[in-house]
């Protein structure tokens, strides 16, 4: 297995913490017909970082950059998670036992199963640990 097949390019956008900024980002993606598969906002004093999984990350990056946003790509992985009590525990336990640190994470509940998006300190080790522990890491081609 090649870890590259599992690494998803998340876009991260710097945003001031004030009304209208998320709308500006979302509007730009709409105009380019870019679909947002999952997203989250992390906030600190006065600013935040909008993180999104989109179907066309390169296009999103270019469009937002042209508009003057600070945009960066960040490598994340998506893990299939049972949509039932204990689903999150299963994944988190594997990561903990593998001594893999989760920097941040967000999730969504899809049609078939729930999906956990993970930003970890060691992507390759995380993929290997999840597969070894019987989990499913979703291929990036499913998203992008």
């Amino acid at each position, binding site marked *: 297995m090649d870890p590259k097949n599992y690494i998803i390019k998340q876009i991260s956008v*710097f945003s*001031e913490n004030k009304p209208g*900024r998320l709308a500006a980002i979302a509007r730009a993606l709409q105009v380019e017909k870019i679909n947002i598969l999952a997203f989250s906002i992390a906030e600190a*004093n006065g600013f935040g*970082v909008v993180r999104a999984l989109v179907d066309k990350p390169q296009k999103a990056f270019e469009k937002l950059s042209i508009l003057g946003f*600070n945009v960066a790509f960040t490598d994340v992985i998506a893990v299939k998670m049972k949509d039932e009590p204990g689903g999150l525990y299963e994944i988190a336990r594997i990561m903990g036992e593998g001594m893999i640190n989760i920097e941040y994470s967000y999730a969504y509940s899809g049609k078939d199963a729930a999906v956990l998006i993970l930003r970890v300190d060691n992507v390759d080790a995380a993929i290997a640990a999840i597969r070894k522990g019987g989990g499913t890491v979703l291929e990036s081609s499913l998203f992008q």
Partner: protein
Amino acid sequence: MKCWDPRVEEMPRDELRTMQYRLLKTLVYRLYSFSPFYHDRMREEKVHPDDIRTLEDIRKLPFMVKSDLRDNYPDKIFVAGQDDLVRYHVSSGTTGKPTVVGYTRNDLDNWTASLARGLVSCGLGRGDVLQVSYGYGLFTGGLGLHYGAERIGATVLPTSVGNTERQIELMQDLHTTAIACTPSYLLHIGEVAEKMGVSIRDDTSLRMGILGAEPWSDTMKGRIENWLGIKAYDIYGTSELSGPMFCECTEQAGFHVWGDLAYVEILDPKTGEQLGPGEQGEMVITMLQKEALPMIRFRIGDITSFDDAVCTCGRSHPRVRRISGRVDDMLIIRGINVFPSQIEYTLLTIPEVGQHFMIEVDRKGALDDMLVKVEVKKEAFSDKITDLMAIRNNVEHRLRNALNVAVNVELVEPGSLPRFEGKAKRVIDRRKI
């Protein structure tokens, strides 16, 4: 006691003017001979000490400005050798370099004497407890008031600035009768006291405040006096003049500028013409007796007016009204001078942020609050909040070091701050003073 030094303070005006002329003449000869800096300035202006034949001839002399001290950092324009210096004070300059002021023994004596006269003139004396809540250390406020009050036999309580609850406890326990601090800090003390269930008016012996180091208005004076039940006196000075120097007398009609120590002119900032009593203009001060760092025709940048009439208190020295504004963009934040150029200079040394910035000043409660907005550069942007927080903390830390005053920093999106063509307006000051 009515006057600390009645012979000087009540000196007839003619005598005072003769004395000023004599001191000016001596000063100019001394600088022409011993100060390469001022010698060159006079040569450029084609003035020779012999051209000073009356006190009015002072207007032939070249000006000094704050940047002269910066450009000659740290001590290139001192006229005293190391052996004669007994102290340094350091204040923030207009850009990266601070301003260093050196003092000879006589400089400290004259500074102390000036304050001794001023403090007596507003009714302080033996038996009073003066709480000095100006900062002690490199800033001149704390030590200046400290020695002035000790000289006249008042008891000094050197609390310095901060730790407000303790200040209030000590004020009660040691029966403070007078406090020296910025007017906004005194309002803050009043607010904190109320939260502690202490009324400054009813539960303390405080009867007067000696307030300065920042601009304040009649409205603020009225508020302090009515709310706290004390008299509020204005005190004026800058580090270049030695420190806090001149204080209002009990008439509360402006601070007396002791003519044997300083000569004050009010000029039209545009034409440089000397203005008469009552006319608003830029104050220019010549320190007539300073030894280590002489200041001639120093353009401090403060706008005010003066009153030449002999005061009803009996003192013959001219009075200057409370400062009403600035000719430049200098801000005073919690008593500390801040120039936008210092911020610009500091930001240039931090690669993660851009050079554009905006300063927003508010008064939160009674205290000044300064927010600096800076843009994060594209290359520095990271998905990690901790990295961004580290950038923000670093900018705050660097600005605090450069300005000597706490600053809040907000990171904003690149390109979002206003760009200026011509004169930049980077300050939004929402304080009502």
